[in-house]
């Protein structure tokens, strides 16, 4: 297997993926640019789609406007030009920090989004219990955030996002603050969720190996203004086992992306 590389400037040719019935994109960026009021040109003419069952990761140097992509996708920011097509009700946002409410225990934190959406009490309690089990936090329902480790907090945050059953996941560098080993465990968790639910995912990170391990496609972004300069289809099948990280093929793709990133940086 060879990673398929394309320069992004010409029309992107899509490589057919597993059981590709060419479903409609769940999230699409159409010529999106973003200039912040302070003059920062964060994003320039960005166009791409994320289809159901696609896990797209954006890597790039810090401050290249990666997070801006998600802020626009979720509707937190409006783009300066261009547009985003997505069903906002189906979007689940996993924040950079766990952003748990410190005064609520795990159970009540996980219930929060359902509560705000007006889901009846009994039902949201049940959904939260399921989500907590799904991320491996069973037994910690009554704990408060201050009693949890960094990894556990991220698990709770993941569970909170799962409760409304989103079909588009936006991950904003969610595991940047945890240690390497915990990060790999959380990646295993995300992979197994993705494998079961086949949502559409847009994931932001600056870790190349995390990007390659999780994704069906990795996009490389340049800095100021942020532009997608290269994209790589990742050929490995799901479910992905952790030892995949030690395959030569895996290292090879990481190497290519690393080169592309260095090119993007200068």
């Amino acid at each position, binding site marked *: 297997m060879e990673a398929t590389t394309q320069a992004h400037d010409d029309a992107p040719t899509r490589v057919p993926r597993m059981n590709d019935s060419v479903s409609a994109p769940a999230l699409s960026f159409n010529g999106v640019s973003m200039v912040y009021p302070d003059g920062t040109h964060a994003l320039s003419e960005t166009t791409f789609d994320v289809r159901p069952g696609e896990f797209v990761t954006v890597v790039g140097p810090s401050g290249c406007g990666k997070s801006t992509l998600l802020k626009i996708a*979720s*509707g*937190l920011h409006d783009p300066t030009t261009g547009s985003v097509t997505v069903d906002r009700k189906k*979007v689940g*946002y996993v*924040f*950079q*920090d766990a*952003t748990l*409410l*410190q*005064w*609520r225990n795990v159970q009540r934190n996980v219930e*929060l*989004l359902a*509560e*705000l*959406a007006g889901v009846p009490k009994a039902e949201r309690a049940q959904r939260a219990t399921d989500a907590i089990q*799904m*991320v*491996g*936090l069973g037994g910690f329902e009554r*704990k*408060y*955030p*201050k*009693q*949890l*480790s*960094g*990894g*556990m907090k991220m*698990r709770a945050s993941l569970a909170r996002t799962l409760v409304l059953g989103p079909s588009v996941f936006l991950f904003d560098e969610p595991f940047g603050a*945890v*240690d390497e*080993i*915990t990060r790999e*465990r959380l990646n*295993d*968790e995300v*992979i*197994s969720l993705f494998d*079961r639910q086949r949502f559409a995912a847009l994931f932001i990170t600056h870790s190349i190996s995390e990007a390659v391990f999780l994704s069906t496609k990795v996009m490389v972004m340049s800095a100021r203004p942020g532009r997608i300069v290269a994209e790589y289809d990742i050929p490995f099948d799901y*479910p992905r*086992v*952790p*030892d995949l990280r030690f395959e030569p093929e895996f290292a090879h793709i990481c190497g290519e992306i690393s080169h592309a990133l260095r090119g993007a940086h200068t």
Partner: protein
Amino acid sequence: MSDLHNPYIVPGEDAGEVEHHILDAAPPTPKAKFEWSTVFGPLALFIVFMGLWQYMHESGLRTFFDKPGFLVPSPVTVINESFMRSRPRGKLLTGLQWTAFVAFIGLAITIVVGMALATIMARAKWAERAVYPYLVALQAMPVLAIVPVIAAVFGYGLGPRIFVCVMISIFPVASNTLFGLLSVDKGQHDLFTLSGASRLTRLFKLQFPSAMPAIFTGFRISAGLSVIGAVVGEQFFRQGSKPGIGIVIEEYRQKIRFPQIYGGLVLVAALGIAVFLLFGWLTKVVVGHWHESTR
């Protein structure tokens, strides 16, 4: 449980039985432990203080300041003259009751009005710009200077006394509540924005809970000030029909009865400590189980 060498999710495993491995440890829960220093420290200082007091009475005042010892009656005299005889004890305790009453009502009004003002200021920047300078001015002003004016206009009843108490104690509640409401984590705000939460929902489910530690700190400071406000205000409302302890102390001062003055001071101090402990305990009950540092 799989063996240690392959602690990973195995391909093809039943989705319902995925194993999870949480490796980073949760922070330990600190156990409430009895420490001698919590008793020993205050006790030692109390003994030293009592000793010094007794010494000042017996010879210290004479030696250092060339003043008669009766200006500082000995602790035993204070207790005997103030609390062992029923007449002064009755007067002092009734006074303390009225003072506590004024302080309590004043504090209740302070909390309601202070939090309401803070909520309005937190919701509209223009309201903050309009109101806050006056709160700061009120804080900086020697309220006592206008107490006689207030007395002249509103009379000597409980109402004006409560009013003075509120003026003296309102700033900490208002400013701490405002600070708490405005210091909510930005990510948490984004979370509520994405959920399409209304402003009221945001206020009650995010801002107020998040502000609770700051608000309770404000309560604790204001509670102490409300006692001060009640006592000090009274000294200017001498003709009051329901004499608080400030007035009782003032009467004893005019009669030059020093033991009862000190007895009154001891009672006011005890009231202050009681209020402080009460709010410390309340804070612990309300936010202690989730807030990082509650003291």
